């Protein structure tokens, strides 16, 4: 499981960074989204990967912390998802505004001159 998890994070972060460095605004926003998925998975992984363990204490199972998953990274990931979602939506609006004002989807708001 760890290998698959690590590969997933690596592939997503790699593709995200590649797209982030591309000249079109749509590629940039896709790159940012992929990168934020990778980061969210990473935060989740920092609580150690476990199967079949709930993060909330259950009266029937007892209070031994070893029986439960770490709840803090899961709470952090929720916060990060919400914030990332909101800011990505905001960025989309800015992209559309830039496209409308400049007539191009290049990140510098003008097309590079062709040789």
């Amino acid at each position, binding site marked *: 499981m760890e290998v698959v998890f690590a590969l997933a994070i690596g592939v997503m972060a790699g593709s995200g960074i590649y797209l982030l460095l591309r000249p079109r605004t749509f590629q*940039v926003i896709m790159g940012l989204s992929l990168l934020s998925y990778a980061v969210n998975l990473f935060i989740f992984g920092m609580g150690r990967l476990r199967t079949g363990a709930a993060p909330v204490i259950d009266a029937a199972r007892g209070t031994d912390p070893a029986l439960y998953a770490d709840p803090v990274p899961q709470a*952090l990931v929720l916060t990060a998802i919400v914030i990332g979602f909101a*800011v990505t939506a*905001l960025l989309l609006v800015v992209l559309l*505004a*830039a496209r409308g004002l*400049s007539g191009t989807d290049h*990140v510098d708001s003008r097309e590079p001159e062709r040789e």
Partner: protein
Amino acid sequence: MIQHLPILPILLPLLTGALLLFSGEARHGWRALFALCATLAQLAVALALLAGTDGWIATPWRDGVVVYALGNWAAPFGIALVVDRLAALMLTLTAILGLAALVYALARWERAGSHFLPLFQFLLMGLNGAFLTGDLFNLFVFFEVLLAASYGLALHGSGAPRVKAGLHYIVVNLVASLVFLVAAALIYGVTGTLNMAELALIVPRLDADARALFEIGALLLGIVFLVKAGAWPLNFWLPAAYAAAAPPVGAVFAILTKVGVYALLRFSILFGQDVAPAPFKGNWLFYCGLATIAVGTLGVLAAQKLDRLAGFMVVVSSGTLLAAFGFTGTTLTAPALYYLTSSVLGGGAFFMLIEMAERNRAAAADLLAISFEAFGLQERHESEHSDEMAGVAIPAAMAFLGLAFFSCAAVLSGLPPLSGFVAKFALLKAAIAAPPAAPALQAGLLFAALLLSGLAGLIALSRLGIRVFWDSERPTPRLQWLEAGPVAGLLLLCFALAFGTGPAMTYFEAAARALHDPATYIGVVLPGARP
């Protein structure tokens, strides 16, 4: 009641912003009055905290550090807000600058787009929260709050240059936020805590493997703070974004870079010099600051417009702070705090001033001014004015603008008699008097950097100032009291800071002493914990 004081700088702007959001745009006067009252209340709270931490008013807080446990959950489990002298100082600066920018914006800029007032309150909330929090993840959350508000404000008024600069600003800061998340997660994964005081306790006990991972997390964290602080080579987005922003927004942005500097300072000291992870100790911060000063200075000299010049001035002041905090030893901290205060006040005034001065001017005038000088050309009209023109009275607005510009130039480039000079003088004096641990090379470099950046600022400001104010063909701008007042107020504060250097320096020295004694901070946040 007084024990709830530390939460108010976050609650007040949050509630004000939310209420403003739901009140229609129609009732303009009431909204403005409401926002103004709320910001005044924030200033009062910040001043009360300032007085409380320094012991001017009787409080139950000991050692000038106060912890507010949200929901009454004790520190390592709950979220803690921590106020010490430095945090109270930053809160006060935020409130003063926020008040000045708000009053200025009410005159006309507020109506250049929608939702200026709520966004402005949320920006203040994010700033206050970032200064108050004692928790790594909440630092991230408040960074996001202030950035989200600043994205909206940077685009306030719209227009192609703003959207273009804003796009770069948003993308760079989004990537920085993602790096921040990785760093916070990594640090939590290694240490099992996000509380800054508890981190300082746990880090020295880490074994080698965990230590290596922690250092990587700290490295990423350092990169994020340097992006926010506008340190070279992570600051290429900064001048364009600051120059393109609406003037009152630019004025508040003058304190945005200081958040990064504040976070760096807080972390580097909390860990203590001997156990600090590599990114927070050593000389590299000093050299990074020097490089930032150098780039900022070149930018100041090359800037062809006043707003870009102001952006590069922010870079220079950021670099000066980084160099001062990175200097070997701790003697430079108090003068650096003085410099921070002075440059925030002066920089904020400058952003608002240049817009008033630039009003009614032809767009290309500055560009022409530089090329005229570069090619030794004379403007035509200079000889046309004969002697009978000698007695023209200077309109009051021009006299005010000229005086304010001169004062700003003096503060920003460090000329007597204003606070900028006192700040640089104190920095240089402390650099000479630094203990022998600091190599003479460092003191020499700091000397050269500070003096040269001041000289460059002076050259650039006087060059553009001559063109702006001695241009006899331009019409006199019409000023409103609402616009001239905040600039005058900020500059008067610079005067007051210069004349009250004694008491101010005593406070900064107390703040620096408290800062360099992390045991008190840790002891108050985590009572019963033994380092």
